[in-house]
């Protein structure tokens, strides 16, 4: 395709992304190396319905001058990236010097918010993605064998976990796994432990969120794979059958290679989505046990005083994390791309 034609075809889509994603990313990058100006504090007397108190306030006139001089804030370079809320370089160094064993080091590492969030984020991503793809693939194969009349209904019910809003879906599940909810009671009965609570112990909270994540995303893998199965080349399949291939061999050597681009696609999307796990944590009220990078951003932006620079730095770190995570898939895509274009 000629450059010119390509340009016009791609323009609307590219423009939308440029304006609403690329520019904000640049502004986030800038924001992350600038911080608000040092506040000039004054002691003041406050009064209100509950009497008079001594308090501290920002001297706006004095601060105004600083703001006018440098509207972006004060330049702090990589300081925010390395402070305790993010990569925590100093804390890391002192931990390294004061701890004797690896176990001690990793457990104390969990005390730093960034690394605590990262450990859950990575565990979640690497357990849910393979499992949800496997489950989705199995459902797609199974649904594909159903007679026509049943297919529609099955597809609808299979899609339910995905089409419900994550924040509401996780709330529903959260209600159900309460120790007095229907699933919680069932598990107590099965485990024969009347005091079992899925919400009070860290490992069980992690498992609950991971199971929820698989449940929620498997339909996505299912519907993509199912659509792919519809384009399965029947002649290849038939010749494989004539050659006496077993069902498993057909799946292994015909179906999976045919679906490979879709597998890459689903893996890409889900690695990325699950790396940004957030609504699940809010829905499960799991802040005490599990946090994620996106949750840190939410917490920075949702407080009484917003930490914009801190949230920006975490966002940049998230993007870098996603890029690292996806690099194997990207290398693969690069090879595919070169093969196809030559």
């Amino acid at each position, binding site marked *: 395709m000629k450059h010119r034609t390509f340009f016009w075809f791609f323009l609307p889509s590219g423009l939308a992304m440029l304006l609403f994603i690329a520019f904000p990313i640049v502004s986030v990058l800038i924001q992350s190396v600038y*911080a608000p100006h040092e*506040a000039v504090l004054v002691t003041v007397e406050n009064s209100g*319905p*509950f009497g008079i108190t001594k308090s*501290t306030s920002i001297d706006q006139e004095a601060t105004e001058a600083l703001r006018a001089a440098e509207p972006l804030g004060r330049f702090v370079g990589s300081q925010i990236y390395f402070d305790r809320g993010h990569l925590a370089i100093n*804390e890391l160094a002192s931990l390294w010097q004061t701890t004797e064993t690896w176990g001690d080091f990793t457990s104390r590492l969990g*005390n730093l918010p960034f690394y605590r969030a990262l450990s859950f984020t990575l565990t979640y991503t690497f357990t849910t993605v393979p499992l949800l793809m496997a489950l989705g693939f199995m459902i797609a194969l199974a649904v594909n064998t159903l007679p026509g009349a049943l297919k529609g209904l099955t597809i609808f019910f299979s899609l339910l976990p995905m089409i419900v809003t994550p924040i509401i879906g996780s709330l529903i599940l959260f209600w159900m796994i309460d120790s007095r909810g229907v699933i919680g009671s069932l598990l107590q009965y099965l485990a024969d432990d009347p005091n079992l609570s899925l919400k009070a112990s860290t490992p069980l909270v992690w498992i609950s969120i991971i199971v929820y994540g698989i449940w929620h995303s498997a339909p996505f893998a299912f519907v993509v794979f199912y659509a792919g199965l519809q384009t399965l080349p029947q002649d290849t399949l038939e010749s494989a059958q004539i050659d006496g291939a077993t069902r498993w061999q057909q799946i292994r050597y015909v179906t999976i290679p045919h679906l490979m681009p879709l597998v890459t696609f689903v893996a890409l999307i889900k690695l990325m989505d699950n790396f940004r796990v957030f609504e699940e944590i809010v829905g499960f*009220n799991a802040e005490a046990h599990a946090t994620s990078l996106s949750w840190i951003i939410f917490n920075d932006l949702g407080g009484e*005083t917003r*930490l914009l620079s801190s949230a920006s730095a975490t966002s940049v770190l998230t993007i870098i994390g996603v890029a690292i995570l996806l690099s194997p898939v990207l290398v693969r895509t690069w090879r595919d791309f070169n093969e196809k274009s030559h």
Partner: protein
Amino acid sequence: MKHFKLALLSATAVAAFATTSYADGHANCGIEAGRVSIVGNEFPAIQTIGSGAKACASDTVEVKANLTADHQKINVAGMTGNPAEYTTAIVANSSIVALMNEDVIRPLDDLVAKHGDGIKPNQLITVGGKVMAVAFMANAQHLVYRDDILKEAGVEVPKTYEDMLAAAKVIRDKGILQNPVGGAYKAGWNLAQEFNNMYIGYGGQFFKDGSAEVSINNEQGVKALEMMKSLSEYMNPDFLTHDSNATSAEWKAGNVALMNMWGSRTGALVDAEGTAPEVIEHTSLASPMTVGGGSTAATTLWWDGWTVAKNISDEDAEATFLAMKAAIDPSILNETTTPQAVWLIDGYEPSPQSAGVFGAVEMAATPYPMLPYQGLLHTALGAELADFMQGKESAEQALADVEAAYTAAAKENGFLQ
């Protein structure tokens, strides 16, 4: 101390949800022309204020209200532009700080001097001698208890947290309730707020005098955490996931006999559908408790009030002031609106529901601090205390973590060098 049976009130509390209608006497509120645009939370009392202001609309006066639970996320941005999208934000003592830090609200002294008649002096929120907001309602956390269960257990109504622990032990030992204590201990904002209450009760100071330097890793801090830990042993094991909604639900199901709860939520405790009859009949309110032999109530006082944006024309500011003043006029109080809040408005007759909040005021409880950096400490507490509550680390370590997290945030925001 005041004790009231809430059951007497449930009829009026139900009415609180019905549609609001009241005299539209203040036809144009004395406004000639201008633009009024409100941003605020969406609970019923604020809805009342919103519709009160809207009654001032006329051909020349435009009144809009955007009342949403996410108001705190949009109010700073919405008041930053020039002219600002919102001419007034309804805030509380915690959230006005963000607006003052960003310098988007104006001092109201000249407007109060010109049009302030009818606003009581104690409604004016002044910071450094400048009026920054006009308060219209108050709130506080205080004790809620089940008088029937306390009677059955043979214990007095607790006046201190130590009494509460003792009462909880008796109730559990007698087999009346397994987890008699309720509390909004959800990790995050709620847990931090409970720590604030307890720390204030022990007489702690959050910051070194006049500076943004935090000092909570001390004897009072450790004691406050230990008291919270002791209380949590009498709570539902899932307490770290229980926000005030979940805690209220536990109460309504009759699983809890003692809790520290927001005054603004007590009405709903007995009016929701399906609440057990014994809960409706025996829910009682009392003043906040003290702790550790101190005399300071282990709670904080809160107000809600309105502000006026800085980046708008003087005409719009005046229109906004007048419309909001009309919205908190004593004439808005009627059967429906009176139980919606503990109003600070003239002519408000305290209802039984407000007993706890008034108790807190009488005990001269500490208002939630309006420090520019208090919010940062609140966030740090919310994120770092959960490990201690789960027994994963010591109180000292948890408090050291809070201080470190706060210090990093305060440095970023320019409060500390």
